């Protein structure tokens, strides 16, 4: 007899086979998930990764049969293997029936992207956590409450005894997601489905939530199905990876295999675009160095912007050289967007100066001018907006949108206007034949090109780009970044590039300023700030960014910046 026990290959916790999920529409049927198969093992993490419209979210929802109406599982099976060896096919269950309801929340729990809207605004957080406990564990009210407090403590919510009676809107963004996790973990599920749980969060908060999930996974032994579009997150947490594109599985394998020897061209492209953002752009490296001795084209001095009691900008000073790309990086609420808008004079600054050096050498203060002078300055300073949908008037054709600045400034009209519009569209890589179309006929990336065309219409000297690529998928993102850099060289533009994404900043910026609570905490060469920053906040920010390499998972370097000593000038916006 051998003393080696023959271990029967353990059944995976969940097996999905040939899943097809459809949405019957007015005309025909839209198949969101096509013939998908994968499995999840107990205690492991499977990441489903894909761009928008890849069907990853629908896949997650299909498992619990909570696909939004009119979606339905058309065929395939979803086998949940129980501890006693039996298994249930979730795809066969009635979506409203008792059987699937017993599995939801007890065996398989789920958390979502928007913790704010995923929690009821009129019920306390405690109430919503207790609900699952009372439903599945038959707990008494008092016991459920006690357990809810425990759960909140487990997800590191301070003062859980009070927090349990608070409402979701009284929590911060990160706390809400923690509460969601506490709710999902209430009945100690075997599988946690997390649908983009960190997408709406800042990078430092994201790191904490990822840590929390990993820690809880370790202590409870649950499996995690993690849906995300962020390859960095995938590299950090996944055991296995499923790459989806247009409802189809492109590649399925271990994280090591996907990142270091991808087979499918789409996966390669996805990894490639992420890695591209890990270094400076090729176009940038080829360019001759900037003349750093030139007089700055724009000098912001002691800029202050208050909105009532809120101090959005607190004594910000920075300068921009001709032809330079200046990055502004920071988390939500840091004041970076306010700064861009203040420079464009969409706000009237509370204090400070914004000295703009015109082509003829004269200097004007953008903070003070108004009327015709402001109008003239706005011809030379242009803006590209974040939201490619909201920033284009849906009721105007693309030709009208791009041509509007030329028309209202009396520069061109009629046939000449049409020719200029065609030329501009070609410049940003759009086919001029589409100029009579309305914005709704274009994709996000194309719309952002329209926005860029509008920005360069008046031959500006400075362009302020506010999160210009944040709403775009990775594969489209660097195309737009490359376009911006090409135009910069062609048209001798200076950019102020506002972003929350260090990768994008590193890819395209010469210098970068880091903002934190309305103040600039650090300004320096992009390369230096992005690799060896001086300020502890920047260091914390960098440490939180998930590295797109599964071999580099060292979490010990990660830390959160806490304002121990007041930063310069004392009063930070709090």
């Amino acid at each position, binding site marked *: 007899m051998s003393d080696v026990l023959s271990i029967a290959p353990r059944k995976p916790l969940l097996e999905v086979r040939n899943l097809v999920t459809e949405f019957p529409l007015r005309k025909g049927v839209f198949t969101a998930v096509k013939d998908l198969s994968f499995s999840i093992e107990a205690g492991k993490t499977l990441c489903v990764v894909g761009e928008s419209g890849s069907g990853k979210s629908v896949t997650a929802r299909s498992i619990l049969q909570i696909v939004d109406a009119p979606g339905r599982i058309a065929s395939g099976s979803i086998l949940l293997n129980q501890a006693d060896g039996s298994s249930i096919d979730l795809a066969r269950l009635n979506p409203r029936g008792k059987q699937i309801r017993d599995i939801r929340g007890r065996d398989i729990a789920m958390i979502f992207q928007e913790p704010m809207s995923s929690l009821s605004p009129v019920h306390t957080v405690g109430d919503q956590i207790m609900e699952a406990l009372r439903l599945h564990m038959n707990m008494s009210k008092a016991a459920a409450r006690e357990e809810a407090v425990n759960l909140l403590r487990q997800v590191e919510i301070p003062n859980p005894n009070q927090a349990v009676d608070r409402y979701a809107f009284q929590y911060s963004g990160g706390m809400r997601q923690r509460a969601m996790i506490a709710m999902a973990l209430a009945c100690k599920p075997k599988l946690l489905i997390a649908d983009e749980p960190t997408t709406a969060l800042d990078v430092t908060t994201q790191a904490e939530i990822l840590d929390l999930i990993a820690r809880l996974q370790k202590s409870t032994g649950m499996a995690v199905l993690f849906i995300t579009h962020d390859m960095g997150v995938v590299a950090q947490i996944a055991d296995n990876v499923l790459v989806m594109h247009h409802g189809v599985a492109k590649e399925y394998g271990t994280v090591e295999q996907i990142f270091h020897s991808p087979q499918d061209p789409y996966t390669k492209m996805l990894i490639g675009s992420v890695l591209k953002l890990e270094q400076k752009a090729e176009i940038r490296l080829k360019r001759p160095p900037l003349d750093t001795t030139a007089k700055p084209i724009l000098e912001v001095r002691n800029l202050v912007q208050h909105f009532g009691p809120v101090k959005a900008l607190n004594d910000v000073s920075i300068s921009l050289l001709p032809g330079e790309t200046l990055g502004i990086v920071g988390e939500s609420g840091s004041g970076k967007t306010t700064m861009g808008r203040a420079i*464009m004079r*969409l706000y009237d600054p509370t204090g400070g100066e914004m000295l703009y050096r015109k082509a003829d050498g004269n200097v004007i203060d953008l903070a003070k001018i108004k009327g015709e002078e402001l*109008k003239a300055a*706005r*011809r030379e300073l*242009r*803006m590209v*907006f*974040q*939201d490619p949908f*909201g*920033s*284009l*008037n*849906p*009721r105007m*054709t693309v030709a009208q949108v791009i041509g*509007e*600045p030329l028309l*209202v*400034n009396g520069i061109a009209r009629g046939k000449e206007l049409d020719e200029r519009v065609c030329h501009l569209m*070609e*410049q940003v*890589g*759009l*086919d001029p*034949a*589409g100029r*009579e*179309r*309305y914005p*709704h*006929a*274009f994709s996000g*990336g*194309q719309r952002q*090109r329209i*926005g860029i065309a*509008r920005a360069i219409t008046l031959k500006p000297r400075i362009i302020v780009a506010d999160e210009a690529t944040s709403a775009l998928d990775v594969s489209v993102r660097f*195309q737009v970044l*490359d*376009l911006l850099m*090409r135009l910069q060289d062609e048209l001798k533009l200076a950019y102020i590039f506002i972003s929350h994404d260090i990768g994008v900043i590193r890819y395209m910026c010469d210098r970068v300023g880091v903002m934190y609570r309305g103040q600039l905490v650090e300004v320096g060469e992009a390369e230096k700030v992005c690799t060896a920053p001086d300020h502890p906040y920047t260091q914390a920010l960098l440490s939180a960014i998930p590295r797109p390499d599964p071999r580099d998972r060292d979490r010990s370097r990660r830390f959160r910046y806490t304002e121990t000593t007041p930063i310069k000038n004392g009063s930070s916006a709090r």
Partner: protein
Amino acid sequence: MADIAITSVQPDRAAIASQWQLIWWAFKRHRLAMISLFVTIAMYIVALVPGFFAINDPTAQNARATFYPPQGIHFIDTTNGFSLGLFYYPLKLTRDPQTLAAIYKEDTTKKVPLALFGRGYEYSVLGLFTSDIHLIATTDKTKPLFLFGADRLGRDVYSRVVQGAQISLSIGLVGVFISLLLGIVLGGISGYYGGKLDFVMQRVIDFVLSLPTIPIWLALAAALPQNWPATLQYMMITIILSFTGWAQLARVVRGRFLSLRTEEFVSAARLDGVSEGRIIFRHMLPSFSSHIIASVTLAVPAMILAETSLSFLGLGLQPPTISWGVLLREAQNIRSIATAPWLFMPGVAVVIAVMALNLLGDGLRDAADPYNK
């Protein structure tokens, strides 16, 4: 060029469809709303030239036709073989020998043909010129046709309902137009400038909206001298109705203005150097005009109902002006409607008009924003 994002442009109808086309396509899918649109158009055509659609002079009294019951129009004649035509039978009056109650029966021996585009009483077309051509006219003037019967003075209810459409339907439009002017100006100022002005305006709008309209209208209408000329009365009633009607529209306009003010495309236009006037008229107005049209369509029926109620109570328009509300005063007495239930016909007209406009407005509201699905 380095990269062409759109490699080929397919001629796609939706891609080059303007806002109004998209709205129209969305609206067309709404079957009830489409029917309502046709009903509404038909009603307003009638209201434009009621004389053409009327059969008898709506003001003419006929002592022998008191509470004359409704008559039908016949198309098929079987008395003498089979023939098609357009005719009616006059009614023959007999009395129940016991109760002496009037019994009307069709006298099938006397067939009176109807003429399409025939000549009848003379009427004025919008005060521009007169005509005596009617859609249908009886060929025997001594035996008038009462489609919806006659009232206590023997006046033709059908022709009066048709004539009443002019006042009742137009009062809604004019009243809403005045409300809209007030609403756009006040709501627009409030929403565009914001701040303290907006705060004050908001309180005023809230206040006006919290007032019960009918007692106020009653009090205002009671102030109108009864002997004023009809046109002056008409104008005053519309102004009275607009007195409270503007607040609802002002609130809609303000809300739209406020949400549009923060839209990025409006900021973008400002940065493009677009003047304030052009921002309002070229960027903001097209964005909410469809919503305004929907709100207006929904406000018209409310005005029609209000006029009807006021006139019904005797505080709105006064006879001899003919509006649906004035006509319904005839139905006030339970005894007269017990003998002549057809006096409710103006009420049926009100219900159809109001329902068509409500459904139309509802369909328009659903279709008003083709970009936010």
